[in-house]
C-alpha cells in the first residue's frame, strides 16, 4: 500500500532485518570466520549466487563511463551506476518469476514497487543500496577479479564485455563504433540520463530496454566465452587457495557429499583426505578448530536463551548452568581454545582471537562459565559500531536474567557438529551451476 492512498488500518507485516553479513553476531565470532572464509575463497560472499551479475556490472561500467565522476541525481543522492542497477533489476523482475531470480538483491523492493505501480527510486529501492544492491554484494569480487576498479571498467571487465558483445551479437557496444550494440548502449544511457533528472525509473512497461535486459543480461544466459572468462578468473593461479577449493567443490565427489548432507565440515574433511595442498590443509585445520570452538559457545548461548524464553521470567545463572550445552562448553572450551590459537597463528589471526575470546581460556564451573559468556556477549554488543547495541539479555535488580522479546528462542535449539559459519560452498556451487560447470 502506498501510505498516501488511505488512512485505513492495517496489520503489521513480518519484516525481518535486512542486515549486512555478520551484523547480527551476539558473540563476536563472525570477523574471524569471515577472515578465514576470505582466505579460502577470496572475494566470494555468502549472499552471492549469480555470477552473471559480474557481467551486468561490467556492462554497466561501460555505459556509466560516459558520465562525469560527480554526476548525481538532482536530489544529490543517486549515481548513474545505481540508476543502471534499478533498470537491470526491474528489467529482470518484469520478465522472470521469483524462482528464476532467487538471490537477486533488490528483487522484493522492485517487485513491490511494480505491484503498487510506483516507479523504482531511492525511496522505493533498498535502504542502503551501495551495500545490499547487486553492485554492493558483488563489488569486492568484481574488483578482485579485475572486472572493475573504483566503479570503472578494468582489464578482465573489458575482456568480459568484448566476449559478451560478440556472443550476444551486440557489436559496437564496447567501442561505440557501429552495430546493434551502439543503439542498446544509447538506449540504456538515455534512460539513465532521464532518471538523473527525476531521481526515479522513467520508462513505461512497453519500453524495449526491458527486453534488452531480460534477453542479454539475465542470470543464466551465459555465452560460452563469457562463462569461460569468469570461470578462469575465479580459478586462476593468482589465488591458489580459491582455485583449489572451487576445483574440489565442483568435483563429482564433493557434489555428491553436498547433495547428501549440505555439510561444509564433510566437504572440508573430504578435501583434506583428497590430498590437498599443505596451505589448504593448514587453513582447513584452522577453520575446523575455530568452528568447534564457535559451536560450543554458540550452543551454550542459544540454549541459555531458550531456557530464559521457556521460563518467561527471571532466570538465574545457576539455572542456565544446568543445561547440557553449558556443561559441555564449560568442560571443553578451555582445551579447544589452545588448539584454535595454534591453528590460527600461521594465518596471523591468533592475536585477534585471543583479544576477543581470551576470557575463555579459564577452566571454570558451569555457573561461572555461563556468567562469563553473558558478560562476553554484553561486551561484544557494547563495542558494535557505531555506538554499541543493547545486549540480548537484561539483568534485573536482583541479578535475574531476562531475554529481550525479539531474541526469544521458543523451540529447543538443534545440537549438531556442523559449522556455525558459512565457508562459501553454496555460492561456489551456485556460481558453477550457472556457469554450466556443474550439472543439476
Amino acid at each position, binding site marked *: 500500500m502506498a501510505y498516501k492512498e488511505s488512512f485505513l*488500518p492495517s496489520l503489521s507485516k513480518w*519484516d525481518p532485518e535486512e542486515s549486512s553479513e555478520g551484523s547480527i553476531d551476539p558473540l563476536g565470532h563472525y570477523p574471524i570466520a569471515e577472515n578465514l572464509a576470505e582466505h579460502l575463497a577470496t572475494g566470494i560472499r555468502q549472499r552471492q549466487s549469480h555470477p552473471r551479475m559480474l557481467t551486468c556490472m561490467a556492462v554497466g561500467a561501460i555505459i556509466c563511463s560516459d558520465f562525469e565522476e560527480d554526476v548525481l541525481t538532482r536530489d544529490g543522492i543517486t549515481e548513474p551506476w545505481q540508476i543502471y542497477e534499478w533498470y537491470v533489476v526491474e528489467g529482470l523482475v518484469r520478465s522472470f518469476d521469483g524462482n528464476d531470480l532467487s538471490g537477486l538483491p533488490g528483487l522484493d523492493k522492485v517487485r513491490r514497487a511494480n505491484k503498487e505501480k510506483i516507479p523504482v527510486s531511492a525511496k522505493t529501492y533498498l535502504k542502503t543500496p551501495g551495500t545490499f544492491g547487486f553492485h554492493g554484494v558483488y563489488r569486492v569480487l568484481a574488483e578482485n577479479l579485475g572486472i572493475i576498479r573504483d566503479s570503472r571498467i578494468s582489464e578482465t571487465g573489458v575482456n568480459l564485455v568484448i566476449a559478451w558483445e560478440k556472443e550476444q551479437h551486440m557489436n559496437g557496444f564496447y567501442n561505440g563504433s557501429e552495430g546493434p550494440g551502439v543503439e542498446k548502449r544509447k538506449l540504456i544511457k538515455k534512460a539513465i540520463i532521464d532518471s538523473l533528472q527525476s531521481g526515479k525509473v522513467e520508462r513505461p512497461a512497453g519500453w524495449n530496454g526491458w527486453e534488452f535486459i531480460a534477453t542479454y543480461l539475465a542470470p543464466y544466459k551465459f555465452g560460452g566465452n563469457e562463462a569461460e572468462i569468469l570461470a578462469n578468473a575465479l580459478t586462476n593461479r593468482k589465488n591458489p587457495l580459491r582455485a583449489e577449493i572451487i576445483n574440489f567443490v565442483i568435483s563429482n565427489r564433493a557434489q555428491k557429499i553436498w547433495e547428501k548432507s549440505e555439510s561444509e565440515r564433510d566437504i572440508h574433511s573430504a578435501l583434506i583426505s583428497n590430498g590437498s595442498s599443505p596451505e589448504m590443509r593448514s587453513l582447513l585445520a584452522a577453520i575446523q578448530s575455530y568452528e568447534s570452538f564457535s559451536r560450543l559457545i554458540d550452543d551454550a548461548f542459544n540454549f541459555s536463551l531458550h531456557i530464559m524464553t521457556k521460563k518467561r521470567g527471571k532466570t538465574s545463572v545457576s539455572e542456565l548452568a544446568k543445561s547440557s550445552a553449558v556443561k559441555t562448553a564449560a568442560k571443553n572450551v578451555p582445551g579447544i581454545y589452545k588448539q584454535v590459537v595454534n591453528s590460527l597463528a600461521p594465518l596471523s589471526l591468533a592475536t585477534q582471537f585471543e583479544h576477543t575470546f581470551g576470557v575463555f581460556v579459564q577452566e571454570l564451573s558451569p555457573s561461572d562459565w555461563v556468567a562469563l559468556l553473558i558478560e562476553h556477549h554484553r561486551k561484544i554488543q557494547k563495542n558494535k559500531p557505531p555506538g554499541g547495541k543493547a545486549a540480548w539479555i537484561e539483568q534485573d535488580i536482583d541479578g535475574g536474567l531476562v531475554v529481550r522479546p525479539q531474541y526469544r528462542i521458543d523451540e529447543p535449539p538443534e545440537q549438531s557438529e556442523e559449522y556455525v559459519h558459512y565457508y562459501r560452498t553454496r555460492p561456489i556451487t551456485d556460481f558453477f551451476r550457472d556457469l554450466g560447470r556443474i550439472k543439476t
Partner: protein
Amino acid sequence: MSEENRENSLLDAWKSPPEAGAPIGCFATSFTFDSVFFEEECLGRFLDLESDPSESAAAYIIEREEKLSGLVCAVALVDQHHCRGGRSLRWDLLPARLRGGVLHAKVSILHWAGYTRIIIGSANLTPSGYRKNREVFAVLNYYTECETPSICLKETIDFLRTTIEQTCGDVNTPSIQRCVDFFERVVADSRKWGEPEQGRAEVKAFTVFSAPGHQSVLNQIHDRWPYQQQPPCDAYVTSPFFDVGKENRPAIEMWKILRQRGNASLTFNVCGEINDNEVVLQAPKSIINAQPTGRPGVETIIELLNEYSGQDDEITKAYRPVHLKTIWLENDYGYAYLIGSSNFTSKGLGLDKQRNIEANLLFTTNRYNTLAPAYLNGKELDEKIKKIWQETISDETDEKLAGLALLPDGFRNAVYSCDSVQGGTLLLELGKDLPADWQVKLPGSHEVILTGVSWKASGCPTTNRILLKESIPPAGLEVSWPAAGNATAWWPVNAQCGAVLPPPDELKSLSLDDLIEILGSARPLHQLIRRFQRRKANDIVAGGSAEIDPHKRVDTSGFIIQRTRRISWAFRAMREKLEKPYATKESLDWRLYGPVGVQALVHAIDREGQSDSERAFLLAELGLELSRVKPGQALNGLRPEDVSEKLRNFIKTLDVRAQAIQLSDTPDMRDYICNVFKEAGK
C-alpha cells in the same frame, strides 16, 4: 471475517513519501523502547540515510549527524521504565513519568516540509514491535488537498502537548522547548491540510485517547457509535493481556455498550496452545463470567489466534507473537473498529482511577470490506475441548515493572553543554525525592561524577555543573543506590542545542584542500569523507603522499594558479549550495557554522593561508561570493530575506576579520579588500 488480511511494513511508514520535501522533525512515544533500533531504523528511514552503520561506521555517523542537525527536533518520549540506551545526542530522549500508570501510547508524528504523517498503533519502538509481532496500526497523512480528517491531527498534537506537561516535569528545559517549537511548526505548516468535515466520508476516523482526566475508552467508543438508536449487537475483542482476578471490569463494561435486548455476543480472540483434547488459553476465566446472567440470547465466544504466519513448513513458518489490541463492534447498520495501544485491561481502557496514557483510533463505516482486512481472525474452538485458563500478566502491570530500577523523581534533568573555555559540561538538576547513598557515574566507566554525600556537602544545590574530561558527551548517566541492588537506573542526557555537540572525528579540523573539495562537489558529504579515507589509506600503502614526480616539484607557478582556480570554483559551488532552500533555521546554521560550513572554511583560511595577503584576499572573495547568494524559497521554509539577513551579518564578521590582517606592506591589496567589502555590504 475477511479472508485476506491487509498487511504492511511498519518501518515503511517512516520512509518519506515522494514529494514530501525536506524532513523537519519527528516526535514519537513508546512504552518499551530500543534506542539503537529507533536511531538506525526509524530515524534512518525518516532522514533517508543511505549509509549502513555496520558497513562504514564513519560514513554513517557523518550522514546521520549532518541530517539530524537540520531538524527542528527528533524526540522519543518513552515511559520511564524503559527510557534508556546509547544514542546520538542530536535527538532527544525524554522519560515520561506518570504516577499510578505508564505511558503506553504508541504515537509518532513525522513532519516534512510538505507533508505530515501520524502513525498510531499497538507497536512499541522496538525490533520485535516493528518487525516480528502481529501488530495493528494506521497511518494518517496530511498534505495539500488530502482527505484525511484534520481533527485527528489537531487532537493528536493537543494530546501530545498535554502528555508532555503531565509526564515531563519542568517544561522549560531546552529539549521540551524543541518539542514545543516542533508542534508549533507542524500546526503552522499543516493549517490548510486535511478535511475539516467527515460528514460524507465512507470511513470516518476519530482519535480515542486515554489519560488521567479523560473519559474511558469504552465511553468514547459508545459516544462515537454512529447509530445511537441502534446499539451494536456483536463485539470482538483481541488483546494479548487482560485484567487478572475474579472480576473483569472491562468485560462487564463492554456488555453495557452492546444492545440490552435481543441477541448479543462478545467474542474474545485470545492466544493459546492446543494439546490433545485441551487448550491452554492466555486469558482469565473472568472474561466468561462477565456475561449478563438471566438474559436469553447472549453469548460469550472464545476464539483461538494463530501465532504462526506463513506456510506450515519449517522454512516459511514464522512465530509472530500477537501484540495487537482491537475492539470490533457491529450491527445490521454498520461497524466500528478501535485499534491502538489499549490492552483489554482496566488501566488500558481508562476504567481505573490509576490509568495509563493510551492512544487509539476508532474507525466507523457501513462498508464492511474497508475495515475487515485489518482484523485478525481467530479460530472457533470445539465446544468439547477442555479450556485451561492461564492468566498472563501484562508488561505494564506493577508486578512486572517492579523488577526494573526506576530513576527516582529527584533526578530531574541532565543537560549537556559545551563552550570554548570550559569544554564539555553537564548540568544536573536535582530535586527532593532522592534515595540514600546515591551516586552518578558516566556510562561504562567507573568514574563517579556526583554522589549524595558530595552533593549534601555542597549544600544540596538544584543545579550541579560537572566538567567532563572526555570530549564525547554521554547519552545518559548510570545512577545507583544500595536499595537498587545490582541494577543501575539510566538518566538520559539531552543537549542544550545542536551547536554544543562536537562534530564527528572525521570532520574535525579538515584541511583547506579537503574543505574546498567538499564545497566544490555535488556528492553527499559522507561519500566524500569515505573517498578521503580511501585516498589516505592508499597513500599509506603507497608509502606516504610525498610527491615523487620531479617535474611536478618545480612547477610551482602552475600550482598557485591551480589553487586559486580551485578555490574560486569551490566558492562558486558553495554559493550554489547556499542558494538551495532552507527548510529549517537549523539547516542554515549547519551550512554556515557546521564542521563543513562557511565558518569552517574561514578557520581553514586563517590556518592555512600562505600569506597575510592571501588570507585577506580569500576572505574578501568569500564575502563577495556570499553577497551574491540569492536564497531559494522552500515550501514552508525560511524566507529568502531572512537568509540574506543572516548572510549579511556573516559578511560583516568577515570584514572585521579581514580588516584585522596587517596589510601595510601591500596598500593595493588593502584598498582592494576595502572595496570588495563595500561592494559586498550593499
